[in-house]
C-alpha cells in the first residue's frame, strides 16, 4: 500500500495550494475578459455601431445620362447607346495580379491595358469599381459569366456609351468624349467626374457644351459587403439628365456640302445665316470617325490619325489659316471708302503692274485693267487698284475695318480649336517681328497676301457682315438647349439682325455688294451665272460672290517669264482656291465661304462649290424651319 501512497500527502497538499492559486489567476483573467467586453459593448458601443454602419453603407453616385445632340431639323447627331462593360473591384489591392492575368486570358487585354488596369485597381479607393473593358459583345459577356467563379470582384455593369450616327460627317462639329483627365477636373468639383465610367467632352460641341450636357448625378445608398459588392439598395435620389442640345446645323445640307467637296483632298466650307449668325453647315475634310473614340481608340488608330498629313483631327473650317487673297479686297475697298481715301467715283489706273521702291507689284492680268472705279475693281479683281487704294487708306484703316469684319480674333462660336488668324497692323509687326511697317507690306495686305491670314469661318463672318448691311453678327452653333423637363418654345423667325451695327456708311456697303453682284454677273466668276446644268440661275436664287486665289509660294520672275502653270507644280505648292458668296442678292440671308487647299484657282475650283451650296441652302431655307424644336420636345 505504501508503495502507492508514500509521500503523496505532502505532494497533494502542495498541489492543492498551487492549483487553487492557478484557478484564482484564471478567474482574474476571465474577469478581465468580461471587463473588456463591458468596455467594447457598453462604454464604446455607440462609436463601434457607427463604424459598423459606415462599413456597411456606401453612397454611390449614379452617372446622369448625357444630353442628346440633334441637328436643327431634329435628326440625331450624338445619342447614348447601352454599353455592357466589365467592372472590377479589388479587396484593398489584394490578388490583383492573379485577377488581371485571368482577365487577360478572357479578353486578351495586351500589355498596355493590363498595366492600366493594375494601376487603376491599386489606386481605387473605397472599393470603387474600375472599368476592365467596355462595349462587351454577347460572346464576351457569356465568357465572363462562365468564368465568374474564378473572378472575384468582377461584374458586368450596364452603362451608356456615346454613339455618333453620322460618324465622320459631323466629326469636327460634335467632337467626341473620353475619360476624364486631370485637366478636365481643374476648376470643376462635380463629384460625378470621379467615377471611372464617366466621360468628358474632349472636342467640338461635346466639349463646348460639357457643363450643361453632363447633367447632375443622382445618388444611391447601398449596403455593401467587404469587397464592395452591393447587397441591397437602401435609398435613392434620382439625378438630372443632361440638357439636350439643338445645333444650328442642317444635317441634310451638311451632307450635301460634304458630298460636293469630297472630290477634293482637303478643304472646308462654312455656311452662315447672315441675320442670326447660325452656322448652317460647316465641313472640313478629311474628318474622322468619332465612334472610334467612343468605343475606346487603340494606340495604332490614334497614331494613324495623328500622323496623317491631311490632319483629319484638325477642324480646318475654324482652325486652318490661309491667306485670303482677293476675297480680302472688300476690306481694302471698304477701308478706302470709309477713310475717304477714295470716293465711289475715284478711278485708279492699272497698267498691269505698279512699281514700289524698285520692286514690281503685278496685277493678275498682265495687260492691265485700264482705269477702274471701286465697283469695277471688285468685279475684275484688279490688283493695281487695291495696291493703290491700300496705300491711300493706310494700314491702320485697313486693320481697323478688317478687325471690325472679324479678322484677327476669335469669334463667339465657342468651339474649341479656333484660330485667330492674323490681321496685321503696325503694332502687330513691331511686336511679333520687331520690324517697322513698310509700304510694300500695305500693298500685300491690300490684296489679302503677305502677313494676312484668315480662317474659313472668318471669311464667312466677313461675307455675312457685308451681306447683312454691316451688322456684327457672331457665328453660333447652339440653337437651343433644354433638359427634358423644360419646355421649349421655338423663337420667332427674325429678318433683321439683332447684332450691333458696325457703323459703316450704308452707301459704301452697297457699293461693295454691287461689286460682288457684278463678280458673278459679269466679272471674274461670270461662269457662275449659270448653274451646274448650264441654266441661268432663277432670279430668287441669284447670288453675289468674290473669288480668291491665294499664293502658297511666291511666283518668281523666272517662273512668270517661263509661263509655268499651276498644273505643273506639285500639289502642295499649288495655290489655294477660295470663294466667298452670299444670297439671295436682293435680300441676303445666307453667306458661304469655300476653301479648297491647293485647288489652283478660286473661280474655277471653289466657285462652283460655293454656287451649288448657296443655291441649295436658299432652296431649303433652314432659317424658317422649327421642326427640330418639336422633335426635341417629344424625346
Amino acid at each position: 500500500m505504501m508503495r502507492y501512497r508514500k509521500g503523496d500527502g505532502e505532494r497533494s497538499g502542495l498541489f492543492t495550494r498551487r492549483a487553487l492559486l492557478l484557478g484564482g489567476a484564471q478567474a482574474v483573467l476571465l474577469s478581465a475578459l468580461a471587463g473588456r467586453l463591458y468596455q467594447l459593448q457598453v462604454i464604446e458601443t455607440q462609436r463601434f455601431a457607427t463604424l459598423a454602419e459606415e462599413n456597411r453603407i456606401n453612397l454611390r453616385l449614379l452617372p446622369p445620362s448625357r444630353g442628346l445632340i440633334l441637328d436643327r431639323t431634329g435628326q440625331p447627331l450624338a445619342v447614348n447607346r447601352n454599353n455592357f462593360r466589365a467592372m472590377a473591384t479589388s479587396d484593398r489591392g489584394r490578388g490583383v495580379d492573379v485577377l488581371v492575368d485571368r482577365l487577360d486570358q478572357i479578353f486578351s487585354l495586351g500589355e498596355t491595358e493590363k498595366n492600366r488596369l493594375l494601376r487603376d485597381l491599386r489606386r481605387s479607393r473605397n472599393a470603387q469599381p474600375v472599368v476592365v473593358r467596355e462595349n462587351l459583345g454577347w460572346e464576351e459577356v457569356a465568357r465572363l459569366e462562365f468564368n465568374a467563379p474564378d473572378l472575384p470582384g468582377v461584374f458586368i455593369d450596364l452603362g451608356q456609351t456615346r454613339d455618333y450616327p453620322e460618324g465622320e460627317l459631323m466629326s469636327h462639329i460634335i467632337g467626341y468624349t473620353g475619360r476624364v483627365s486631370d485637366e478636365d477636373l481643374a476648376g470643376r468639383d462635380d463629384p460625378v467626374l470621379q467615377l471611372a465610367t464617366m466621360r468628358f467632352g474632349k472636342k467640338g460641341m461635346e466639349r463646348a457644351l460639357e457643363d450643361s450636357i453632363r447633367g447632375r448625378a443622382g445618388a444611391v445608398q447601398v449596403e455593401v459587403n467587404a469587397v464592395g459588392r452591393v447587397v441591397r439598395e437602401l435609398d435613392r435620389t434620382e439625378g438630372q439628365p443632361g440638357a439636350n442640345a439643338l445645333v444650328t446645323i442642317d444635317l441634310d445640307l451638311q451632307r450635301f456640302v460634304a458630298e460636293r467637296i469630297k472630290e477634293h483632298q482637303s478643304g472646308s466650307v462654312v455656311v452662315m445665316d447672315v441675320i442670326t449668325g447660325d452656322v448652317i453647315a460647316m465641313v472640313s475634310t478629311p474628318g474622322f470617325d468619332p465612334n472610334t473614340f467612343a468605343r475606346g481608340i487603340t494606340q495604332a488608330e490614334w497614331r494613324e490619325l495623328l500622323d496623317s498629313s491631311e490632319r483629319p483631327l484638325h477642324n480646318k473650317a475654324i482652325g486652318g489659316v490661309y491667306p485670303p487673297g482677293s476675297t480680302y479686297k472688300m476690306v481694302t475697298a471698304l477701308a478706302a471708302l470709309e477713310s475717304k481715301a477714295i470716293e465711289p467715283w475715284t478711278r485708279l489706273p492699272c497698267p498691269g503692274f505698279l512699281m514700289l521702291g524698285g520692286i514690281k507689284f503685278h496685277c493678275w492680268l498682265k495687260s492691265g485693267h485700264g482705269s477702274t472705279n471701286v465697283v469695277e475693281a471688285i468685279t475684275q479683281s484688279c490688283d493695281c487698284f487695291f495696291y493703290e487704294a491700300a496705300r491711300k487708306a493706310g494700314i491702320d484703316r485697313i486693320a481697323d475695318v478688317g478687325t471690325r469684319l472679324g479678322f484677327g480674333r476669335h469669334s463667339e462660336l465657342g468651339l474649341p480649336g479656333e484660330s485667330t488668324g492674323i490681321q496685321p497692323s503696325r503694332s502687330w509687326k513691331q511686336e511679333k517681328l520687331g520690324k517697322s511697317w513698310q509700304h510694300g507690306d500695305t500693298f500685300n495686305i491690300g490684296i489679302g497676301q503677305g502677313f494676312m491670314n484668315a480662317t474659313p469661318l472668318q471669311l464667312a463672318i466677313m461675307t455675312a457682315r457685308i451681306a447683312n448691311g454691316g451688322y456684327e453678327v457672331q457665328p453660333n452653333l447652339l440653337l437651343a438647349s433644354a433638359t427634358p423637363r423644360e419646355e421649349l418654345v421655338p423663337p420667332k423667325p427674325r429678318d433683321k439682325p439683332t447684332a450691333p451695327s458696325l457703323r459703316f456708311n450704308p452707301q459704301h456697303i452697297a457699293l461693295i455688294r454691287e461689286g460682288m453682284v457684278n463678280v458673278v454677273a459679269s466679272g471674274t466668276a461670270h461662269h457662275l451665272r449659270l448653274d451646274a446644268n448650264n441654266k441661268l440661275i432663277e432670279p430668287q436664287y441669284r447670288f453675289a460672290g468674290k473669288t480668291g486665289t491665294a499664293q502658297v509660294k511666291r511666283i518668281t520672275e523666272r517662273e512668270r517669264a517661263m509661263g509655268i502653270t499651276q498644273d505643273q507644280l506639285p500639289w502642295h505648292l499649288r495655290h489655294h482656291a477660295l470663294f466667298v458668296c452670299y444670297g439671295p442678292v436682293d435680300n441676303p440671308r445666307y453667306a458661304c465661304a469655300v476653301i479648297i487647299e491647293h485647288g489652283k484657282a478660286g473661280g474655277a475650283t471653289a466657285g462652283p462649290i460655293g454656287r451649288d451650296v448657296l443655291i441649295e441652302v436658299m432652296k431649303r431655307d433652314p432659317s424658317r424651319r422649327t421642326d427640330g424644336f418639336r422633335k426635341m420636345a417629344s424625346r
Partner: protein
Amino acid sequence: MSLALDAPAPIGFGEKIWRINWGLVLVLTAIAGIGVLALYSAAGGRFEPWAARHAVRYGAALGLTLVVALIHPKVWLTLAWPIYVVSMLLLVAVDVVGKIGMGAQRWLVIGPMQIQPSEIAKVAVILVLARYYHGRRKEEASKFLYTLPPIAVILAPVALVMVQPDLGTAMMVLLGGGALLFVAGVRLWMFLAAGIAAVGCLPIAWSFMHEYQRKRVLTFLDPDRDPLGAGYHITQSKIAIGSGGLFGKGFLKGTQSSLNFLPEKQTDFIFTTFVEEWGMVGALVLLALFALVLVWGFSIALRSQHHFGRLVALGVTAMMFLYVFINTAMVMGLLPVVGVPLPLVSNGGTAMVSVMFACGLLIGVNVYRDAQLPLRR
C-alpha cells in the same frame, strides 16, 4: 475496513458509467451547440458548409471522449512516452514535408486524413509531464536538476512548432507546461528566473520572427498604424463586438459577419460572429459555460487520489483555459493575432478531436479517481 480503504476493489462497469461527469458532458454539448448556432449564422443562415458538419463531428468526438474516459489511467501511464515520441516525430515530419496551409506548415496528410501533429503534441506533453512527476517525490520535484527533463519535454515541441511557425500553439504548450510544473512543485524562483530570461530573450526572438509575425505584434501594439492592412482584422473584429452592444444585433443579423468584413469568421473569429449577434449577454453566457468546464476540471483534479490524475486533470484544464483566453483576448484586441481556435465553437476537426480527447482524459481521471498506480521511477 482499513484494507478496503487502502485498496478499494476494482469498480464495475455500471459504477464507471455512473462516475462519468454527465453534467460536464452537458456543458460541453451546450458549448458545441453554440458553435453550431454561430456557424449556421456565419454561413448566412445555412447548415452548409459548416454547422451541420460541426454537429456531426461533435457527436463523433463525444463518442471518443466517452471511450477515452473509460480507459484505465495505467494505460496512459504506459503509453505517455510512446505517444510523445510519435508526436515529436510527426512534428518533425510536418516541418519537413508539411503542406503549406494558411501561410504556415501545420498539416500532415496521411492517406485521406489531414492531421495537425501540434494538437497531438499538446496532449502528449500533458501525459508525459504527469507521468514524470507522478514518479517524483516532493523533494525531488523541487530540485533544479529534476526540473531539467520536463523543461526539455516542453521546449522540444515548442521549438518544433515555432519553426512551422505557429506562435499560438507554441505559447499554449509553453504556458500549459509551465502551469503543470508550477502545480507539480517546481520552486518559484525558477519561474522568476525563466521569466527574466524570457524578457532577456525577446530581442533574439524578434530577430527570429517572420516578417508577418513582427507585423502582427506591431499591429497589436498599435492597430491604427495600418488600418487597411495587418490591423484590419483586429479593427473589424472590435467593431463587430462593440457594435453588438449589450443584447446584440439579433440572430442572423450581424452585418459585420454577413457582409464579410470579418476575417476567418468561421474559425478564429467565430467568437466575434457570435457576440455581434448575441451581444455581451451571449458572450458572458458562453464564457460562463467555459468557466464551468474549468471549475469541473479543478474539482476533478483536486479529488483525484493519485498524482498522475491530478496532473492530467489540471493539465487539461489549463489547456482549455489557454484556448479560450488566448482566442477571446485576441479577437477583442488584447493579444496579438496568433491563430488559436475557440474550442468546440470554431470550425475545424483536429482541434475538436484533441480537445474532446483531453476531456475524455479529464473525465477518465474522475472515473478512476481512486485507482492505484505504481510509482515507477
